[in-house]
């Protein structure tokens, strides 16, 4: 028991950066959701069952715009497609986690994934416990932040016009961080250029699906050239 508490404390130390981010972004999400007329039970529901930061912001947009269920499913597929590749990277890590496995898979967000990648604990039962504690703590921060934000937003009526921009700012920061980390910017540039072209052609309400299909098609067509470029570095 004592050992478990020690592991929990170690997990907590690992999660401090994510705690700051999740409390803040969760709070912003709660305020944003509340500004569209959805109170804290909605924030709780979404943070417990969806638990995907970027997609929850997009979901507020879908809720407020009364999007169709099929449209929501397609949007989710596209926004969260990147999680496929976190799963691929964790196939080996999660192989023997036993009963924890369904929750470990469900809770694999961008940030939790990045903490798992940075974890130095040697393989064994302690490492598996650490993984679980990190995953649980991260979701706890997110749920807490979003509910507190929602309650705060409803009590203290913040003049919230323009808070939607928190989503734009979040994606811009992620984009800049990826830009700095990558040796080849082709994917980042093509993503923006193709999306702008599709926006001009298809208009604001219908450009996302054509954009995503075009991006995938262009990448597959250019695979020979782009992969060679990657290897050359």
């Amino acid at each position, binding site marked *: 028991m004592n050992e478990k508490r020690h592991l929990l404390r170690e997990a907590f130390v690992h999660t401090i950066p994510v705690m700051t981010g999740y409390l803040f972004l969760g709070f912003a999400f709660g305020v944003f959701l509340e500004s569209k007329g959805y109170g804290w039970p909605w924030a709780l529901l979404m943070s417990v069952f969806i638990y995907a930061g*970027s997609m929850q912001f997009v979901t507020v947009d879908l809720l407020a715009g009364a999007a169709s269920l099929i449209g929501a499913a397609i949007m989710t597929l596209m926004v969260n497609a990147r999680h496929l590749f976190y799963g691929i990277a964790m196939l080996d890590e999660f192989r023997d986690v036993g009963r924890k496995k369904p929750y470990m898979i469900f809770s694999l967000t961008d940030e939790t994934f990045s903490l798992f990648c940075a974890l130095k604990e040697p393989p064994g039962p302690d490492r598996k416990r650490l993984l679980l504690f990190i995953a649980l703590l991260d979701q706890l921060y997110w749920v807490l932040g979003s509910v507190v934000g929602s309650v705060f937003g409803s009590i203290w009526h913040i003049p919230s016009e323009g808070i939607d921009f928190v989503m734009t700012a979040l994606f811009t920061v992620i984009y800049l961080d990826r830009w700095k980390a990558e040796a080849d910017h082709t994917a980042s540039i093509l993503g923006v250029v193709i999306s702008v072209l599709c926006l001009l052609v298809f208009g604001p309400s219908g450009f996302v699906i054509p954009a995503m299909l075009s991006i995938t098609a262009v990448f597959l067509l250019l695979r020979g050239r782009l992969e060679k470029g990657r290897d050359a570095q």
Partner: protein
Amino acid sequence: MTELHGLLLIGVVAAVTILIRSAPFLLFPADKPTPGWVLYLGQMLPSAVIGMLIVYCLRGATPLAFPYGIPEGAALLTVVLLHLWKRNTLLSIAGGTVFYMLLVQLVF
């Protein structure tokens, strides 16, 4: 929008998210190699999708009519400059968002 539709919408988003997160474990058993084109798309798509999401967020801006996309452009520039300067995620997001809120509430 009815409450039921809202609940269904959240259910759909949650279900698709779980499906995506568990698909690799169902599709690619750990003992078999993952196809090359899947790994390739896995490297390329994330950056491109983030770029698309920025465009998605800005889709409502009107560069040809008042306010000519000025609040969006100015706030976006603030985020980029703050981030290049301090590279502090929370500062960049908070700074850009507060600036945008001030612009749309007080100026435009």
